[in-house]
């Protein structure tokens, strides 16, 4: 069937009906894409071919090679297209009932739980869906008002099982069918226009009256379906959170919330892979941390450690780790014991640490993160996200009490020895200076990295210089000994020469931050 470019309103109504049947027949559809008619045709060709392997490969390669296969704002490739479809949907006219619904093959393709819709049909489809949705929503509101305003005396209804008025009974039936229509039509609106908030809101009105878990699962599925082509859709993410809050409220005592969190984690990792540094996706992931058990937090730390190493430029992932680590520290400082039941191997994965017995101190958590970060900085040159992460860890470390039994003291290091109580807070005098030595050594190493002629070495030097600035700024803000303050002042005065060499364009900034033209430190002769 030749594809049309111009569909009318009746086409829209017809196509809407077909689409709704497709969605109803395959509730497992997890991916949708809007494609050019020629691409749609090629999906059907692939599916219909009695194929030789090379033909399959040719077509798959040519499809995979087209970055604009699916016309979405993300330019995401349409996944899993191939002949392994076992849900072949038939030509119009073939009525084998176990083969699925018939539909217009110039508009739709469905297989392997994937759905493609051709772009020229979107406008009439949306018009029809919106119209149907608004109508069913009006009916829903009317019926909802009616059932609240009923004033009927009770008598047995036809089924004889409950005492309700006939009108109430009929009204309930109407409400159910109107609800079903509303859900059916709003689904299509939400799929075609992912941020049409009112459509999602209507679903909230209906779903909030339901308590069956399968219903929630189907709604999460819908949100995931929309996110498959619109991973930045604010409404789809917001709906997901609304659902999860509802599920947690309704099934608080069961294992349901934990299972949901695990599935969310898998889902979010797939989204993170497809849609890089997606603020809304990672925001959602950080939101989930509030609901996680300590064991889940640790699992997430392990997973994201592996993931971050493959995506060292993904600032969102490192920010997520910061959320997890902060959460861990806060739960460590409480007296809960739920977290004692896993091995240190679970936690560290490939990175062994000699002082593992100290790992349950927040201090060690940050120190380990710092060491791992150093490894990455040395290996992956010029990655801003790594240095931002280091700034944060440094900031945490110089404030972190060493032991959970610490006395909170504002003195960072002390030349009074030894304290009567067991472990002192934060770094001792020697430890702090040793720590600063290590950091300055790393900075010097990065400042002296051999020029490759590529951008990354220039960037590495600049980030190292900025990190040194950061360290000075943070250290200036703490209460330290005389020796520390002198050391910091000396480093501050040496900043200017370094910054002039590495990033002269930021002169205004470091002048504003540090008044580097005024240096009180005088090198002793």
């Amino acid at each position, binding site marked *: 069937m030749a594809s049309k470019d111009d569909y009318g309103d009746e086409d829209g109504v017809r196509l809407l009906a077909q689409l709704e049947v497709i969605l109803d027949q395959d509730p497992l559809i997890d991916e949708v894409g809007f494609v050019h008619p020629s691409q749609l045709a090629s999906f059907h060709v692939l599916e219909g071919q009695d194929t030789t392997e090379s033909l399959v490969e040719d077509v798959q390669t040519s499809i995979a090679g087209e970055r604009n296969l699916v016309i979405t704002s993300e330019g995401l490739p349409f996944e899993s297209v191939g002949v392994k479809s076992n849900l072949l949907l038939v030509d119009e006219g073939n009525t084998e009932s176990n083969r699925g619904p018939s539909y217009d093959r110039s508009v739709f393709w469905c297989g392997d739980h994937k759905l493609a819709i051709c*772009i020229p049909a*979107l*406008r009439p489809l*949306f*018009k029809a869906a919106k119209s149907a949705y*608004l109508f069913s929503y009006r009916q829903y509101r009317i019926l909802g008002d009616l059932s609240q305003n009923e004033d009927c005396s009770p008598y047995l209804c036809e089924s004889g099982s409950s005492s309700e008025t006939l009108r109430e009974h009929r009204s309930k039936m109407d409400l159910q069918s109107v609800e079903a229509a509303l859900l059916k039509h709003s689904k299509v609106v939400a799929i*075609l*226009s*992912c*941020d*049409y*908030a*009112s459509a999602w*809101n209507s679903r*909230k009105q209906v779903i909030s009256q339901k308590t069956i878990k399968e219903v929630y699962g189907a709604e999460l599925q819908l949100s995931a379906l929309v996110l498959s082509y619109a991973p930045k859709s604010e409404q789809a993410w*917001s709906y997901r*959170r*609304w659902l999860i809050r509802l599920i947690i409220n309704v099934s608080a005592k069961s294992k349901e919330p934990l299972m949901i969190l695990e599935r969310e984690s898998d889902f979010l990792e797939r989204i993170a892979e497809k849609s890089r*540094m997606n*603020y809304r996706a*990672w*925001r959602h992931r*950080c*939101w989930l941390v509030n609901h996680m058990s300590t064991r889940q937090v640790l699992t997430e730390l392990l997973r994201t450690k592996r993931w971050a190493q493959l995506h060292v*430029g*993904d*600032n*969102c992932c490192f*920010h997520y780790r910061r*959320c997890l680590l*902060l959460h861990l520290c806060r739960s460590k400082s409480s007296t809960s014991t739920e977290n004692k039941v896993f091995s240190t191997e679970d936690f560290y994965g490939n990175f062994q640490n000699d002082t593992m017995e100290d790992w349950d101190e927040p201090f060690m958590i940050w120190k380990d993160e710092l060491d791992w970060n150093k490894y990455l900085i040395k290996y992956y040159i010029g*990655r*801003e*996200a790594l240095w*931002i992460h280091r*700034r*944060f860890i440094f*900031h*945490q470390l110089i404030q972190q009490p060493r032991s959970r039994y610490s006395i909170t003291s504002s003195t960072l290091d002390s030349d009074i020895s030894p304290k009567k109580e067991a472990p002192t807070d934060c770094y001792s005098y020697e430890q702090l200076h040793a720590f600063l030595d290590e950091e300055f050594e790393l900075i010097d190493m990065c400042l002296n990295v051999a020029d490759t002629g590529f951008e990354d070495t220039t960037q590495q030097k600049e980030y190292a210089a*900025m990190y040194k600035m950061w360290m000075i*700024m943070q250290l200036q803000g703490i209460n330290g000994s005389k020796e520390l303050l002198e050391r910091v002042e000396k480093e501050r005065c040496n900043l200017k020469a370094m910054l002039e060499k590495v990033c002269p*364009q*930021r002169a*205004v*900034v470091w002048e*504003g*931050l540090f008044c580097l033209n005024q240096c009180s430190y005088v090198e002793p002769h």
Partner: protein
Amino acid sequence: MGELEIEKHTQFIMSVEKKKDFDSMVMEHLRMSGAYWGLTTLDLMGKLDAVNREEVVSWVLQCQHDCGFSGNVGHDPHILYTLSAIQILALLDKLDTIDADKISAYIVGLQQEDGSFAGDEWGEIDTRFSYCAVCCLSILHRLDKIDVGKAISYVASCKNFDGGFGCTPGGESHAGQIFCCVSAFAISGALTHVDRDLLGWWLCERQVKSGGLNGRPEKLADVCYSWWVLSSLTIIERVHWIDKEKLKTFILDCQDKEHGGISDRPDDAVDVFHTFFGIAGLSLLEYPGLKPIDPAYALPVHVVDRLFFGQPH
């Protein structure tokens, strides 16, 4: 390279209204914000007379519900579109067409126990909504109707180690969220909550080699951040920490000089959202021929002056 094509951009904005294709249809739920972007841009360029004001006001009022405004006729109300509607009415000097007490009551109803604001009855919390609440009520001269102290302390709780702000406490610093938080502080007279040096540093690091600004580390430059970063820097008096000339050049490079409009980065497709933020950014950079814009209210300065120094309603 160097010139701002005011006539072309005017034509582009006027043409957006007429588009009936699918991509325009799926934006209809945010038409109120689109109208605010388009109208404010026209005013900044001195071209607001091209528009039929009565028609605009009449449409805006059709979007008024018992509580708040929706993004378009027949859609659900939300605090985002309530702000856009109020901004449009302020721009057109038609605030007397609405019941300010009713709108205020709607916004007050969205404030939560912890001082945060939900976007609508469904409860999503975001510092953007705190900004919407504060800005809207300030324009209506009813800021005292909410618990301002709690609103501000909630926003302050979203401050991160880098001096930036996220959408909720602990949320990743993002230039858009930072604009909302800093502006909310500015409007409420609470800028002491901002560490100007620390935040200024984070903001000036948004400038990349091309001269454009990104919204977060490791991201590409995008014209819309010319507004969110620049307005924040303006409010905290650190604009001189970026290279203004380079930024100006970047924004001008994002114009479609043939058909009008501005895109997120050079040679991409244009839209009214990026056109507004590009022009607003140029206004903050004092580009000749553009009216000055207020960095916190995101309205032309003459409108803000009229609100606060003209005849009160």
